[in-house]
């Protein structure tokens, strides 16, 4: 039986062999971690996981990073974790598409199913994501789930089999890990909406009351299983939409123009914008450089073969599904053209609609195109014509060669070491010799500093000096480390890091003023103290220009004892800010002290506040939930919580009689969250909490129960099927 099983799926195993080779040949170099663009690899998840779960992402990335937490717990190194991720992605995409082909085209020859599943796993799009930084974020994992989601979706709409429902909802639960960027949930919803409409029109799914019942069940199940991230997202999205509406940073027309794709590139799964950074435009093989234009041409082959399926005889069912897939591809193609003729007017209207405006990025729509093309390829290979040996050999030969050449870097190696987008402009396409890299070898002193942070269990934070901004907001430039991206502290430590090149206080990048020689530098430490920044990395590995500009300020602050050395090495000096300069995490003052966004006024205001500030003891209930005893002495005081200003932080006064009064927010305080305490006649308790986290608990309960329901349903239907099989055998005997 075992032998039969192996023989039956030998095509599948051979395909798997190709991918295992791709994973082995692309092993990430030991001792390195991934930092690039806006992405960083979390290497200390034991400490970082609670912040991830309860922090900004409010549950959205917990499922994804739980896998990496597990890898860390069993001792897998950070570099090996990258290889694991590549493996899970490629093999996951392969299995997912293979399952889709078995579900929908069960009669298709398994060798064709294997070849197309390999194409789905290793193509120009997956090369794009693994040579960019995006491949190493949680939301691209959606790519893995698309085929199996669509496969089971078609099955639950067309057949009444309980196990299909169980599997569909199980995959829906797993796929929810992709929605750390909710725009992907929007694009997935749009894809399913169009798919359903076209399936109905083409008659693949009959239009009946059963259809409506099934759709309602799909929607309810989907919402329940995703409630754990949907609920906390609602208030964040509301605040985010208001922020985007008021923002002048995003110019929609410009964003659409930059991410618009030409038809020729959509057909080839290429990105028009920034194409030069990615394979095949970024061609890393000088000895076979003549192949570059050929690879560009070969990128047309999968689509042309897929279109070839329209010209040959097909069964009625396949033909209908073929029109559905071509129809969705066309509609997505129109959206991907964005600001291009002739759809620019229509698209600029569509992309201004709320929710749809989240789909500005190229990959949010392009992530589905490999699936449409792969499905059309399956249909091409399932035609009767391909059963003839001659045509099978020709098509197989052409497709096989294309498969290998288009995905050559997967099989030749060097995805991030030679082919990274960051090396595209570099003469030396080698991560070790290039000026910048996404694979970073973190020097030992950075790891040694962790002991200091681990010993400090307060809410204090880390930051850096001098101001050495990277290529975009939130990025730092550390040339000696080859980093142009997030600060390594984000990747290494559980303690929070405040990025100088980001807007921590309103729209003020205060660090731009650090080198001003006309002001005494005391204001820097005053401001750091106000924001509870206790540890400061002074980077000797920063840009030389930044170091030179800040050197007088550094000497001044050190001589005055405002920066106290804790560690020194060739990479950095770790300073500590003396305790008396640090503000508490929770404190009060008689009147609200506002901060003028002007370095000349900072010290004066901070000293005023420091004089009046009274630290309050608090009880930490959970990661973002605290209680403070409110005695009558706190009447009419201003209560501060030293967290980045966010209206979703809420404070409520709970009195002895159980009455709850929300405290009114003091909006003029921009450096923390502040509320006005009313006059108190009796003692009570102030409950401070981050509102989305309350919804997170509710959502987790809902999704947890729904998931257990899915598992229970799966076990029940499995047992029922076995019983039926037994009865059938008994009856036939």
């Amino acid at each position, binding site marked *: 039986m075992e032998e039969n099983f192996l023989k039956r799926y030998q095509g599948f195993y051979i395909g798997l062999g190709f991918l295992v080779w791709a994973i082995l040949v692309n092993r990430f170099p030991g001792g390195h971690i991934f930092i690039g663009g806006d992405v960083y690899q979390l290497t200390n998840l034991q400490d970082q996981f609670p912040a991830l779960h309860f922090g900004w992402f409010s549950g959205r990335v917990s499922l994804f990073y739980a896998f990496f937490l597990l890898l860390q717990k069993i001792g897998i190194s950070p570099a090996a974790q990258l290889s694991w991720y590549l493996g899970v992605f490629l093999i996951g995409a392969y299995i997912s598409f293979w399952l889709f082909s078995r579900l929908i085209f069960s009669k298709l020859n398994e060798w064709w199913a294997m070849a197309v599943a390999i194409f789905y796993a290793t193509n120009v799009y997956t090369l794009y994501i693994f040579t960019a930084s995006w491949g190493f974020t949680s939301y691209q994992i959606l790519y893995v789930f698309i085929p199996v989601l669509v496969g089971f979706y078609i099955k639950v709409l067309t057949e009444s089999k309980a196990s299909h429902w169980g599997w569909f909802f199980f995959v829906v639960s797993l796929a929810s890990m992709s929605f750390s960027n909710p725009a992907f949930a929007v694009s997935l919803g749009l894809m399913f909406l169009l798919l359903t409409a076209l399936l109905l029109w083409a008659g693949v799914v009959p239009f009946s009351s059963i259809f409506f019942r099934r759709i309602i069940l799909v929607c309810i199940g989907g919402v329940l299983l995703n409630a754990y991230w949907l609920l906390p997202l609602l208030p964040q999205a509301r605040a985010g939409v208001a922020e985007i509406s008021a923002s002048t940073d995003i110019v929609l027309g410009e964003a659409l123009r930059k991410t618009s794709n030409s038809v020729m590139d959509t057909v080839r799964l290429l990105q028009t914008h920034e194409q030069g950074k990615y394979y095949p435009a970024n061609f890393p093989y000088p000895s076979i450089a003549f192949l570059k234009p050929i690879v560009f041409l070969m990128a047309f082959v999968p689509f*042309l073969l897929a279109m070839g399926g329209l010209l040959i005889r097909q069964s009625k069912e396949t033909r209908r599904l073929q029109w559905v897939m071509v*129809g969705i591809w066309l509609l997505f193609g129109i959206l991907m053209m964005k600001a291009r003729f002739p759809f620019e007017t229509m698209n600029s209207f569509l992309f201004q609609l709320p929710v749809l405006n989240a789909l500005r990025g190229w990959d949010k729509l392009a992530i589905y195109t490999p699936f449409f093309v792969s499905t059309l390829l399956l249909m091409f290979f399932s035609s009767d014509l391909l059963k003839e040996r001659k045509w099978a050999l020709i098509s197989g030969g052409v497709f096989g060669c294309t498969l290998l050449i288009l995905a050559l870097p997967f099989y030749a190696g060097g995805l991030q070491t030679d082919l990274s987008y960051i090396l595209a402009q570099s003469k030396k396409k080698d991560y070790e010799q290039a000026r910048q890299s996404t694979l970073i070898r973190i020097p030992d002193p950075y790891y040694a500093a962790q002991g200091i942070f681990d010993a400090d269990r307060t809410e204090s934070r880390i930051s850096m000096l001098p101001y050495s901004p990277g290529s975009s907001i939130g990025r730092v430039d550390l040339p000696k480390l080859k980093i142009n991206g997030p600060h390594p502290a984000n990747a290494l430590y559980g303690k929070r890091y405040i990025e100088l090149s980001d807007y921590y206080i309103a729209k003020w990048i205060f660090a731009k003023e650090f080198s001003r020689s006309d002001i005494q530098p005391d204001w820097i430490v005053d401001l750091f103290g106000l924001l509870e920044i206790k540890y400061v990395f002074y980077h000797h590995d920063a840009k030389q220009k930044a170091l030179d500009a800040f050197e007088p300020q550094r000497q001044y602050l050190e001589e005055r004892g405002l920066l106290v050395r804790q560690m020194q090495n060739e990479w950095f000096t770790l300073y500590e800010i003396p305790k008396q300069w640090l503000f508490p995490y929770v404190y009060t003052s008689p009147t609200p002290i506002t901060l003028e966004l002007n370095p000349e006024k900072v010290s004066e205001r901070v000293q005023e506040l420091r004089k009046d500030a009274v630290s309050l003891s608090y009880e930490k209930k959970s990661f973002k939930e605290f209680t403070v005893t409110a005695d009558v002495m706190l009447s009419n005081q201003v209560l501060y919580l030293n967290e980045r200003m966010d209206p979703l932080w809420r404070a409520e006064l709970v009195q002895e009689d159980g009455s709850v009064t929300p405290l009114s927010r003091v909006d003029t305080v921009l450096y923390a969250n502040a509320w006005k305490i009313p006059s108190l006649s009796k003692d009570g308790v102030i409950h401070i909490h981050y509102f989305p986290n309350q919804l997170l608990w509710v959502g987790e309960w809902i999704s947890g129960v729904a998931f257990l329901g899915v598992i229970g349903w799966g076990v029940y239907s499995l047992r029922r099927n076995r019983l039926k099989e037994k009865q059938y055998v008994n009856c036939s005997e």
Partner: protein
Amino acid sequence: MRQGKVRLSWSDVVIFALGGLFGLMFRWNLPETVLFLFFLWAIRYSLSVKKIAMITGVVFFSIPALLLFGFEKRAEEIALYSYYVLVILVVRAMIEIGNNSR
């Protein structure tokens, strides 16, 4: 909708003239206007899906051929036209499916 032998009536002439005017109004170039008229023709005369699919195939196959000979701009233009033809093909196919299911 008509099928089979094409015999132009006055109403056809009016429809195609309006199609041409439509092109002028939106300042389409000649190939785009011709494609629009082709779309009208494909719908009005129920041009077979197979024939449109053949045309689509030819147009799509010409893109890499043009690129091969260095006509990049022309290839991009043809890619857009091939997209239009594919839209016509899918619309025609969907109409046919709709008619058959009724």
